């Protein structure tokens, strides 16, 4: 404590000496913080922050960049005499917003003893594999493997409707009865084929007997057999045609349209008496026990997303609920308009709460191929819009590194910038160093800590 007081006394004693120092060429006007942010120099008619008359040191920069009007002693690009239309302002914003200390600004204590007295504490920056989330819009859709879109098996007229939208049906449950001329034709064809088969069977038996007696030739027997097999094939064909549409082999020319899966009727696009064609979608049945969530992954994040990754979903229509699943499919093509690709996750829908076209947000947990560098939160200082971490370069010197903050893990926060794993970063006392770098930015000239 006594040493500290002596140190203060010595510095105070040195102060008058400092005050005696004079600027050799005082500028015409001392710059102010406000001047850098849009104030005009009334005397010279240019923006105060870039007034080369008030701040002659700026002239070297403009001259080095070739932006100089020798005649009037202003930057050529906004010389008030040559370009009065520009109002003495550069074309770009030169305000000091965000002008934190430069990356790499050094802070040096004059002695190691002073550094020790500052009571700085350090921690090692550490490296960890990163896991981050890709967040994208999501929408619920039907499970494409559990949707039945049902057409008439044969054109005809709807004679009866057995179910309506919303009805729960079993597999094979009747949906509608359709009377079809095609069914009648197939029934007639079956009848004809059966008769032909009867005749062919009898002819074959007779020819076979004659052959045994040596009356008929082998050729006749083969012809009779071929006719019998043709007739049998025709019968099978006609039966299959009727069986496919679910019509009886004889009688009424009507057939019953049935549901191929168990589920809920979601569409009925016909009515009694309506003529329906084979291409018409007349019913849709959906099994909602499982739904899909399609997540629109932006093009830029696609390389991070793959099958098997965990995803959590929140839906606008189901507040307070969070669903989890895994990615089962990532689309091979990017949508030309939205520049996104679909990543799909199936969701069990045991309570029926999920409905198609619900909108929400999906968070896919992805493993970033890069590793993250983490530092204690206390090591991060904010100065004029930028985040700084101070890295120890030697016992008495430190360097400010501009960083961008990433996700936090407890007391650690990931940073991107020129901080490496293993760097000694200042935790306790980093505020003191920040103060020093700001001292530089307000015009002190260097960052020596006495």
């Amino acid at each position, binding site marked *: 404590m006594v040493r500290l007081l002596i140190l203060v006394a010595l510095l105070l004693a040195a102060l008058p000496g400092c005050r005696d120092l004079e600027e050799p060429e005082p500028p015409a006007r001392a710059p102010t913080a406000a001047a850098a942010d849009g104030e005009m120099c009334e005397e010279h008619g240019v923006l105060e922050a870039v007034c080369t008359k008030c701040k002659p040191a700026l002239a070297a920069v403009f001259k080095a960049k070739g932006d100089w009007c020798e005649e009037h002693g202003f930057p050529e690009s906004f010389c008030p005499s040559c370009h009065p239309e520009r109002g003495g302002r550069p074309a770009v914003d*030169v305000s000091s917003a965000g002008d934190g200390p430069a990356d790499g600004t050094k802070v040096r204590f004059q002695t190691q003893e002073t550094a020790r007295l500052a009571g700085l504490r350090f921690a090692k920056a550490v490296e960890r594999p990163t896991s981050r989330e890709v967040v994208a819009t999501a929408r619920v859709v039907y499970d494409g493997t559990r949707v039945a879109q049902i057409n008439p098996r044969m054109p005809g007229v709807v004679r009866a409707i057995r179910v309506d939208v919303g009805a729960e049906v079993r597999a094979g449950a009747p949906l509608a009865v359709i009377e079809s001329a095609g069914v009648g034709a197939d029934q007639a064809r079956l009848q004809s084929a059966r008769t032909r088969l009867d005749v062919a069977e009898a002819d074959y038996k007779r020819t076979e007997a004659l052959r045994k007696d040596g009356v008929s030739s082998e050729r006749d027997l083969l012809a009779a057999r071929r006719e019998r097999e043709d007739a049998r094939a025709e019968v099978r064909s006609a039966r299959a045609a009727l069986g496919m549409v679910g019509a009886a082999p004889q009688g009424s020319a009507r057939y019953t349209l049935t549901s191929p899966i168990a589920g809920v009727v979601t569409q009925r696009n016909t009515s009694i008496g309506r003529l329906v064609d084979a291409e018409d979608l007349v019913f849709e049945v959906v099994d909602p026990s499982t739904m899909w969530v399609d997540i629109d992954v932006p093009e830029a994040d696609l390389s991070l997303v793959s099958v098997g990754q965990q995803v959590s979903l929140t839906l606008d229509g189901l507040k307070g609920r969070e669903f989890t699943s895994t990615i089962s499919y990532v689309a091979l093509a990017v949508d030309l308009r939205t520049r996104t690709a679909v990543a799909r996750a199936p969701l069990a829908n045991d309570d029926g709460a999920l409905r198609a076209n619900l909108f929400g947000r999906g968070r896919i947990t992805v493993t970033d191929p890069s590793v993250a560098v983490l530092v204690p939160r206390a090591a991060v200082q904010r100065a004029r819009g930028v985040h700084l971490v101070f890295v120890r370069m030697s016992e008495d010197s430190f360097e400010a590194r501009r960083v961008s903050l990433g996700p936090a893990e407890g007391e650690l926060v990931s940073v991107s910038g020129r901080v490496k794993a293993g760097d000694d970063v200042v935790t306790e006392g980093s505020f003191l160093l920040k103060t020093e770098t700001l001292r530089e930015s307000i015009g002190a000239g260097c960052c020596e800590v006495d």
Partner: protein
Amino acid sequence: MRNLMTYLVLSSTILFVSACQKEAPEQAAPSSTSAQAAQHAPADAVPGSHEDWCGEHQVPESMCTRCNPSLVAAFKATGDWCEAHGLPKSQCLTCDPTLKIERPPQKKGH
């Protein structure tokens, strides 16, 4: 309590010193350390000359935004500014590690 006192003492000394340097940085530096003075150009150094050199930041002194932050506006006005690192693009070794900023050679006879 001891740490708090240390901060107060150091902060107060820093404030005094910075106030001093703001008035006359070029003259105050030698009084604190001659090594520091050797790193910076004399006040009368001609821009673009060998003498116009900031040894601390390895750029011409007349172009050193870290020593003279008022130059920042001029670099911004000429489109030579790296927002990410707070330096002129032409001096930003983080963005362009191949960048070479060479000190002009001494004129013969010096």
